[in-house]
């Protein structure tokens, strides 16, 4: 039975939330240790757990993706694995030589040539002078810098410099490789080469830990992954499940920034987030699930209802109800318009109204969407009321479809594929 290459047992790490508390506790901890006492493993005022009781085990040849929103503890975990930070609780056991692509380009001196920097960076990555000499040609071939290798690094383009750093790190062939979001370096051909190299290492038994914000990058390298959320994790899952969970946490995080912008002011002009003539006001927009319960998230493909509460002040004989849907990056990705839908208008007398708009088969991809209601009059070319971002909704990942291609896309179109060999070509 092969021995595991990475064992993480109950690892926790805490930090001070301000420079003041970091100074205070730094001095207190220094005093404790100088007096021979152990680390204080309790959480003190002004501290937080950056990692809390993280556990996982990896075997040689495993590739683990580590995902999480900003501040979830990914980098802290990677730094503990790299020996930069010491855990406050728990234990990390690494079996084999550890290489870190986070160290790519570390220690480069711009005044020295590429050749000279290979020897420096190689030494910093734990290679002996003999190892560096034996891999020298492989490094410059991988970096594709043959003719520029005796040029000072400060004259390199940023891409050349990064390629050289990456080549040194990746050629060192460790048993455990820590990668932090650095696969997106160089041009597309170089990135392809990097992915291929990492796949080669994986096949040869290197254990890979890849931290990335890109589900696509994780999915292409790793079969399993873990998602960190505020320093905690449920453990290792399939990469598809981890991508879904990461996307879910990511959406919740993004929704925090979507505050309601309701106010009593109703400027009679365009250009703001809210405006109108005052003839009608949309007092509230609720999002309900199929059983009419208010929700803030709905699974992809499930029906939901937009409920508008109208306060009509003056008669509106030819009213049109419209809701614009904004995605995070692209605005107005869809419009729900009563006239477009039914070629008809509504007549409103002054009073309070409730309008339900049923969306039976929404094709919105996982993401966060804002809903912007407006009321217009068929015979008037202006809005009687409009408001941006009155409500927001997160569409979550379904269990049967794996959305990973591009988080910027908002609408999913069902498509069928037929591939055939083009006639007349040599086989």
């Amino acid at each position, binding site marked *: 039975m092969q*021995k595991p290459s990475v064992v993480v047992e109950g690892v926790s790490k805490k*930090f001070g939330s301000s420079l003041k508390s*970091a*100074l205070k506790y*730094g*001095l207190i*901890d*220094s005093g404790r*240790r*100088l007096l*021979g006492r*152990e*680390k204080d*493993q309790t959480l003190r005022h002004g501290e937080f757990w950056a990692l809390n009781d993280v556990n996982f085990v990896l075997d040689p040849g495993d590739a683990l993706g580590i995902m999480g929103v900003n501040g979830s503890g990914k980098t802290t975990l990677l*730094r*503990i694995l*790299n*020996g*930069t*930070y*010491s*855990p*406050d*609780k*728990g*234990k*990390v*056991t*690494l*079996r*084999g*030589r*550890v290489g*870190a692509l*986070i*160290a790519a380009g*570390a*220690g480069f*001196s711009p*005044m*020295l040539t590429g050749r*000279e920097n290979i*020897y*420096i960076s190689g*030494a*910093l*990555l*734990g290679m*002996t*002078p003999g190892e560096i000499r034996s891999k020298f040609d492989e490094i410059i071939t991988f970096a594709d810098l043959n003719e520029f290798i005796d040029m*000072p690094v400060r004259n390199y383009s940023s891409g050349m410099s990064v390629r050289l750093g990456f080549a040194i790190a990746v050629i060192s062939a460790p*048993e455990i490789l820590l990668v932090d979001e650095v696969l997106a370096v160089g041009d597309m051909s170089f990135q392809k080469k990097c992915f291929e190299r990492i796949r080669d290492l994986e096949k040869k038994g290197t254990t890979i830990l890849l931290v990335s914000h890109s589900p696509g990058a994780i999915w292409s390298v790793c079969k399993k992954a873990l998602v960190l959320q505020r320093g905690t994790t449920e453990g290792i899952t399939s990469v598809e499940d981890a991508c879904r969970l990461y996307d879910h946490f990511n959406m919740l995080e993004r929704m925090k920034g979507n505050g309601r912008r309701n106010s009593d002011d109703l400027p009679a002009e365009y250009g703001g987030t809210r405006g109108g003539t005052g003839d009608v006001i949309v007092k509230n927009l609720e999002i309900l699930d199929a059983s009419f319960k208010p929700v803030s998230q709905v699974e992809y493909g499930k029906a939901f209802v937009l409920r508008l509460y109208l306060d009509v002040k003056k008669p509106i004989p030819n009213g049109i109800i419209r809701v614009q849907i904004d995605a995070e990056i692209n605005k107005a990705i869809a419009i729900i318009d009563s006239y477009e839908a039914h070629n008809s208008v509504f007549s409103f007398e002054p009073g309070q109204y409730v309008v339900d708009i049923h969306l039976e088969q929404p094709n919105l991809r996982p993401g966060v969407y804002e809903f912007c209601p407006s009321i217009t009059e068929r015979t008037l070319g202006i809005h009687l009321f409009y408001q941006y971002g009155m409500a927001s909704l997160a569409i979550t990942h379904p269990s049967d479809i794996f959305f990973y291609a591009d988080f910027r896309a908002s609408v999913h179109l069902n498509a069928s594929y037929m591939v055939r060999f083009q006639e007349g070509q040599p086989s």
Partner: protein
Amino acid sequence: MRYVDSDGMPVTIYQPNETQGGVIWGLQRAATDITVSRHVIARLFWRDFIAQFRQKLLGYFWALLSPLLGIASFLFLFFIGVLHPGEGEIPYTVYVMVGSTIWGCLPGAMGAVSGGLQAQADLIMRTRIPKVALALSSLAGLFYGILISMVTMTIIFVSTGHTPTWWLLAYPLLALPMVLLGTSIGLVLSVLGSIARDLTPMITQLMALVMYVTPVIYIHSTIQNTFVKAIIDWNPMSYLVDVPRSLICLGHADNAGVYLIIAMGTVALVAIGLRIFYLLEDLVAERL
């Protein structure tokens, strides 16, 4: 903790409170870390040494010119008559030059070691090089400076019509206690100075004051105030400066025994400095 398992595979374990050994443990750990990192220390020194002379008109000549310019101010003050230090057995020019060169090893080592971690913050955050190796790697530059200062001292001796004794060849060894003292203070400052950023400048200022109660640029016998005289006598650094200087200039020295005892004390201080360094080193990366 690092070891090689029964399959010949290196195993690394990270856990809290793993640096709880004693003073001897600290020395052993430092010896292991430095041995493991010897290629890195050599490469970092080579990198910084080569890079500082690139694209310069005088190139490697700066290695000699900089220390010569360093003592020019003292000589200038002496020749225009601002300093009246009195005349002893050793000509004043040579006295100041040798004394200040030896004294320079203390702030030099202290600054190099205490600033070593801050200067290599990027490497601490991105590589697995033992921190003690990064802290001590800057000392390579100091030892190179000591060798260069042997050349500058010879030049001054010759240009002032004097002859140094053969003890000049032992200068790196004679200055070693001063380097060790600076290293021990630097080791503590490198970790504590990362937690409280004003600690290193405070101690650096204090050292500048300590120089005035050490016979570096004045002659001990010319001091009249008994209280100041007593401070100088009780100041161990007086002996670390005076004994090597006398040996180099005159070939003999009083208080050589005291010097040896203090020199052994500096070795003990380095061991204590290393112990404190290892106790606190993991607090550094969190505060860079």
